[in-house]
């Protein structure tokens, strides 16, 4: 993750430095053409990035990532790592703790343990999946609409 970030930063800053140097250098027409090509491609890249940012719903991505993450967890093992800030602070009372393991038990088909872990697990899974479907539906419509607005 960090490597990808560093790579993106380097490419962006490199392209940006090229953009600024063209103002001060004396160039012949061929070199100017080359620099202009770089400039245009850079601008198109940033515009595409903005376009993607406009369409993608952060909420849908995070819910989906959460549900996928719970597929990789084994609920029968002893819990080692928790996202919950209360749990990490050492407070034992938290109304939301056990929800992840509860959903994970449903994936394994163990409804009894799921309800024991957290009674809202089944409802949470249904509600979150409905929300993901609604948001992705909206994303699909927004994609066509914004494409019309930007590219005509």
């Amino acid at each position, binding site marked *: 993750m960090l490597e990808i970030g560093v790579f993106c930063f380097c490419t962006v800053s490199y392209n940006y430095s090229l953009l600024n140097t063209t103002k001060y250098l004396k160039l012949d027409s061929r070199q100017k053409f080359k620099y202009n090509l770089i400039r245009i491609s850079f601008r198109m890249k940033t515009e595409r990035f903005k376009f993607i940012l406009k369409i993608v719903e952060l909420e849908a991505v995070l819910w989906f990532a959460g549900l996928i993450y719970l597929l990789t967890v084994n609920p029968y093992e002893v819990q080692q790592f928790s996202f919950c800030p209360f749990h990490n602070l050492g407070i034992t009372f938290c109304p*939301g703790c056990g929800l992840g393991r509860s959903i994970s038990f449903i994936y394994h088909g163990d409804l009894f343990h799921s309800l024991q872990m957290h009674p809202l697990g089944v409802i949470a899974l249904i509600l979150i999946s409905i929300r993901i479907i609604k948001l992705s539906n909206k994303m699909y419509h927004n994609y066509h609409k914004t494409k019309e607005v930007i590219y005509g």
Partner: protein
Amino acid sequence: MANVLDLLPEIMGEEQMYISSLIKNMDDKQAFQFANIYRTRRKDPQTILLVTLVGFLGISGIQRFLTDQIGMGILYLLTGGICMIGTIIDLVNHKKIAFEYNQKQANQIAMMAKNL
């Protein structure tokens, strides 16, 4: 031709673009009526932000009730904003939540205003 900046100066950004595209084909009277109804039904993103911040004090999920997502609201309320993580997501995402609700209301009102 109705102008958004005259009728609804308080809205901005994405919402402004959306409303201007809705108002474009209305005449002046219809647009005025649309603006009046829309102003009363609209939810301000700032209200959503403040109400989301209440979630850190114990009662979370009010923003979901306000924007007509009763199911998610109950889930947030009973699980403490899904261990605070849901509340933090909503905190980052408050503008989109408000815009989603406003978009729905604007579509309804535009249908009404065209029949008037």
